[in-house]
């Protein structure tokens, strides 16, 4: 087993930077109306110039927002996952471990049950997103408060608190469903499965802002995350402000993942599997791992959403089902082969 070199990391990043646009173009070309790559690119160009040809409308207005949203959400989820795994010093950590996903789900359910019937269309979608976002943030703040003490934040306590909050949010969600009418129930379950079909310019703008925040802020902490892998007191002796680092990372990840859940529902395994694979390719150094995870997460979710659209066309599968179906077997094989690449 050879180790990772800076040259190797650059090669992987370059490869991913080529792969991502390729995946996006293929996604733009495929769907209910199949276009060739040339037609898709041509349509995109026409739409950009303001010519509303059939290909232009399909590619520019229907498919492009969705593909872009998939890429943004994938990048946020994967980068957040990589940062959480580093922070918890646990390669199996997932953003949902700190309660964001469960809290966001509950927030969304509350909004759907309380006001879902009275709101229609875009207002309803926005309200549900806001509920998920707030729910996710509240959950992670609660987990953080439980785990923080004068002596600092205990990672083990935080994981356990995350489990507790997840269970509590799940129970409250079930209680809500118990009292919900069948229309609300359907909405809740659809939303939970995840989907990118609600892509529009407002959501894209929101996703872009969050993505810029996450992808801009997390790499600033790359060296600190590397030092944290040695252990918290070791990082402290290396001059790292450990408490500030932990607090800031948790808030950034909560915002990022909460927003993703709000925009696209719960999308499983992107935050867990992508950083894992990237660590095999570029090593655990976060200076390479974070950007590689962002690119790969974006590409993976674009491909997964594309599959969700075409596999059973014209019926669309929720993208969360696709990522789980692809992710779980892959994840299990990773677990079995962990020793092969030096992870303990």
């Amino acid at each position: 087993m050879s180790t990772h070199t800076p040259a190797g990391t650059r090669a992987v990043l370059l490869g991913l930077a080529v792969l991502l646009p390729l995946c996006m173009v293929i996604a733009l070309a495929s769907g209910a109306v199949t276009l060739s790559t040339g037609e898709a690119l041509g349509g995109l160009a026409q739409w950009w110039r303001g010519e509303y040809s059939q290909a232009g409308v399909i590619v520019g207005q229907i498919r492009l927002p969705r593909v872009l949203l998939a890429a943004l959400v994938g990048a946020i989820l994967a980068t957040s996952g990589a940062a959480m795994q580093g922070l918890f010093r646990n390669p199996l950590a997932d953003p949902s471990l700190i309660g964001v996903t469960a809290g966001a789900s509950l927030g969304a359910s509350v909004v759907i049950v309380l006001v879902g019937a009275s709101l229609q269309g875009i207002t309803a979608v926005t309200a549900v997103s806001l509920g998920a976002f707030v729910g996710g943030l509240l959950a992670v703040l609660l987990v953080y408060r439980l785990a923080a003490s004068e002596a600092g934040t205990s990672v083990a306590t935080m994981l356990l608190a995350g489990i507790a909050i997840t269970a509590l949010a799940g129970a409250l969600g079930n209680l809500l469903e118990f009292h919900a009418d069948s229309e609300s129930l359907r909405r809740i379950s659809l939303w939970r499965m995840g989907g990118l079909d609600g892509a529009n310019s407002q959501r894209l703008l929101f996703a872009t802002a969050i993505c810029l925040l996450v992808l801009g802020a997390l790499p600033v902490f790359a060296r600190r995350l590397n030092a944290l892998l040695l252990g918290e007191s070791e990082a402290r002796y290396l001059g790292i402000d450990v408490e500030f680092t932990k607090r800031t990372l948790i808030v950034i990840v909560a915002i990022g993942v909460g927003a993703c859940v709000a925009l696209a529902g719960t999308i499983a395994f992107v935050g867990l599997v992508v950083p894992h694979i990237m660590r095999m390719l570029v090593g655990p150094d976060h200076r390479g791992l974070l950007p590689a995870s962002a690119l790969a997460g974006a590409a993976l979710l674009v491909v997964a959403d594309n599959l969700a659209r075409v596999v059973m066309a014209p019926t669309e599968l929720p993208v969360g089902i696709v990522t789980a179906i692809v992710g779980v077997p892959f994840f299990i094989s990773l677990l079995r082969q962990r020793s092969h690449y030096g992870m303990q």
Partner: protein
Amino acid sequence: MELLTVAHAGAAPWGTPLLADIHFSLHAGDTLAILGPNGAGKSTLLHTLAGGIDLSQGTIALGGRSLSQWPRLQRARALALLPQQSPLSFPFSVEEVIQLGRTPHASGASEDRQILEDVMAATDTARLRQRLYTRLSGGERQRVQLARVLAQLWRAADSEVRLLLLDEPTGGLDLEHQRLIMDSVDRLARGGCAVVMVLHDFNLAANRASRLLVLDEGRQARLGTPAEVLTKTMFHDIFRVQVEITSHPQNGTPLVLPS
């Protein structure tokens, strides 16, 4: 000027006092070995000296300034601690782990490269450089962690005062590597770095440290030169064993023989 001044220091990290009334000082180039039975507070003392555990009483001054008043980064350039165990479980290469020791510094890539080569030579880790840390044996990991800590303090230009804290640096090492490591520590001390190390081997301590400090239930039971500290009564009172003390045939330091 004294490099490290510990005055009546005590610590109670979890409410119960683990250290009380520790009182000693070190000059540049001094090496102090901390000895004591299990649970006497040796590691606690080391972490307290590093600023990782807050004082409940007394003061610790590094370079004439209270330890808690040192800015984070400057302190990391002045003192480094080798822990007894390190929880690193991610597959960094050996080189990457050692380079983490340069995290608090801004000395530039080429300088760091040179330091990396120097500390790898000093710890015999150069041939492990491309290996994954997670695949190393216990003794190899110990040497890599030591190289990381040495890299943090290697350059005299990085800080006016330098304090190296080692928790059982020779644990798990064979005789050849024990000697190599202690030679590297000596070299750093000759360069003006003060060294405090927890040791379990009395003869190694007598050979390598200028002074010994014996801890017993969190209190400073003895402090002095090896000849002053390593006596039959000390072993009887604190370690509750009978020993014979002779002197080393070559350099005359005390030699402890369990009987």
